[in-house]
């Protein structure tokens, strides 16, 4: 209400000021208008940066053709927004894209794309919004791409001490209520329900998380695991939870690692880990697209040295991460652990 009132009043004010200028006159220079004109001059260039949404497409035949031909002009949401149309409608839509908007595709690509659209968004597809069929709704495969939001709001605990302390206290209460059943009361991943899950709930004391990773996981959940999205909680609760989870991890002493040792760790990483975790360690390696849960992004989280060694030794059950103890020597695993920890980018909380 208040906002609307202000908008009306401000609108009137502008109207009254600028109505005085008329054709052929100079730019109004009355006392009230001058500062606005100056501000306008100072802000001559106005820019925005659009959020980036990763194309998030179910795997089905024709996906590659769809990616190449369609996604250059519009995002996949133009498809997933639609009702579940039959093949005839998708044929019509694809043909419209060719005839009307000039999409470039040959006959073979056209067939593949139509097949893909029918598979992911046809009457029998299992994606969003299919007509009431709860009885055969498959919760096991319900870790839907659509559940995921690519524009996660950054959940960032307060920086001033008092507010932060309040957030941590509130977060501790919320954690007991919402998280402890899986993650355990101390966040060690040893809660009662957690014991029957595979993969096991995260030991939150073992890893330092960046604010954006905490935000992403709280907001979207973690696909391929039992971790659900918590975005239905009020924003303040999410912030409190993030603040509390940050306190679970105790900073370990930062040893100085020689550049040579890091270089060595990097070599081992490129040979063994990059196919899944990506050359830069961001979890987007060539094989990553098919893995669930996704490979770790070491720019957004920094596991403790000992935890990395344990994972390298034993792997992570319930994920694609294998045990490396028979392939990589212990000294190399240590070098690798140091290298992985060096990838963490804590300085850039917005993750661009």
């Amino acid at each position, binding site marked *: 209400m208040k906002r609307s009132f202000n908008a009306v009043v401000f609108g*009137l004010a502008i109207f009254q000021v600028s109505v005085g200028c008329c054709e052929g006159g100079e730019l109004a220079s009355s006392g009230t208008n001058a500062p606005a004109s100056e501000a306008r001059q100072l802000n001559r260039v106005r820019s925005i940066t659009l959020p980036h949404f990763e194309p998030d497409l179910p795997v089905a035949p024709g996906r590659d053709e769809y990616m190449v031909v369609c996604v250059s002009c519009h995002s996949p949401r133009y498809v997933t927004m639609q009702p579940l149309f039959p093949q005839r409608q998708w044929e019509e839509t694809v043909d419209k894209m060719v005839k009307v908007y000039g999409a470039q595709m040959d006959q073979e690509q056209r067939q593949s794309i139509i097949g893909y659209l029918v598979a992911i968004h046809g009457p029998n597809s299992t994606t969003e919004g299919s007509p009431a069929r709860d009885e055969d709704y498959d919760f096991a495969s319900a870790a839907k791409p659509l559940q995921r939001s690519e524009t996660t709001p950054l959940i960032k605990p307060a920086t001033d001490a008092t507010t932060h302390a309040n957030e941590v206290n509130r977060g501790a209460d919320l954690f007991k209520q919402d998280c402890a059943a899986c993650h355990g009361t101390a966040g060690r991943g040893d809660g009662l329900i957690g014991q029957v899950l595979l993969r096991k709930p995260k030991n939150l004391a073992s890893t330092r998380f960046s604010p954006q990773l905490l935000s992403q996981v709280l907001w979207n959940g973690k696909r391929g695991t039992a971790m659900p999205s918590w975005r239905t909680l009020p924003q303040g609760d999410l912030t409190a939870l993030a603040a509390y989870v940050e306190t679970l991890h105790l900073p370990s002493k930062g040893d100085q690692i020689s550049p040579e040792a890091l270089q060595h760790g990097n070599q081992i990483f490129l040979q063994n880990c990059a196919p899944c975790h990506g050359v830069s360690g961001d979890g987007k390696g060539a094989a990553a697209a098919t893995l669930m849960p996704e490979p770790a992004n070491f720019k957004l989280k920094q596991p403790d040295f000992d935890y990395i060694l344990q994972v390298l030794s034993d792997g992570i059950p319930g994920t694609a991460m294998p045990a490396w103890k028979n392939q990589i020597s212990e000294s190399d695993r240590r070098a690798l652990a140091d290298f992985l920890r060096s990838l963490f980018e804590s300085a850039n909380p917005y993750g661009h």
Partner: protein
Amino acid sequence: MKAKTGIPGTTLNRREFMRVLGVAGGGTLMAPLVTTADPNPKRTLEQLVRFPEKTDLILRTDRPPQLETPLHYFREDLTPNDAFYVRWHLEGIPTSVDLGAFRLQISGHVERPLSLSVAELRGQFEAVSLIAVNQCSGNSRSFFEPRVPGGQWENGAMGNARWTGVRLRDLLDRAGAKAGAIDVGFSGLDRAAIAATPNFAKALAVDHARDGDVMVAYEMNGADLPMLNGFPLRLVVPGWYATYWVKALSQIQVLPEKFHGFWIDKAYRIPTSPDASESSEHLAAETTPINRMSLRSLFVRPEPGEQLSSKAPFEMQGLAFDSGSGIQRVEVSTDKGRTWLAAQLDPELGKYSWRRWRLRWNPPASGRYQFQVRAFNRAGQHQSTSLWNRGGYMRNVIEQTEVEVL
């Protein structure tokens, strides 16, 4: 049944809610708890996103962006700029504008082609201001049955704002439109991703362009336009669907002949029948470019799924608008159309503004109720109970909403 979440404007339908619950309770360990049919299967999870200069809006598509205004913003006369819906057609939308370099070009069939900066527009022409509804042609498309492809909007692809700028007529007079001008064409800074896609351009007949209401706006609700709503200039065509309100307007061309372009000749066309309706089995043979907005009225409160108490009176709220004739009366039925109650109308804010209405209602007993709303305008028009066309345009049927009184 919709479960309200903690995020304003976010609702989960029951299946989504169950999905979240199911996963929270241990994923595959738990079987679905409820197996009754989803009462409203077509509604999907509303995902809110925050784009630059915008508050949380409902994500329809991300690229090019189509963002819908949550219903609760319509409890105000003017829709705040940051909550105003967004709809672009082409991949290349303007994200940066240098006002030092930006010029509005007025050319074609004129004596003196003009090239005007925004400062010159502000300084050299009389400023005018009016409140007008801006509504997407496809607003409410997701309610069409059978469903049609296109932006799957609910009722939030619209907004009401105070637009301030200069009369298009004044610009055309300054440029000296020559005798024999037929149409005036408009295009903006947006660009298609590939050359084969037609760039976005619209046109108005020259008499319409010179009617004194059509405006080149540089302000919206007293502030610069948000970039996603067309900064720095937007064509304002009061009473007409928003497809004509060209965003980031940079070219105006006076034409000595009829304008031809994809976005008028092929897209945004409606059946020529008086109510723009056709049957899905027998599509209309003749179509014409969409134009004036049809009369419609909507509920703002109760929101879908809102629960009322039988112990307290409830103030229903809504809005009604047309293309400029003016709303005469609004009526609400709480008994499936058997009887109609006159709603109280808020003061008029101008002939192109929407007019808000209220109706105080004392729930007689708990139970489920169906409300309907219909408006009448001064041109003697009224709303009907059905409308369908292949484009999913101009939905203006008598709206229904269901509430539960506890």
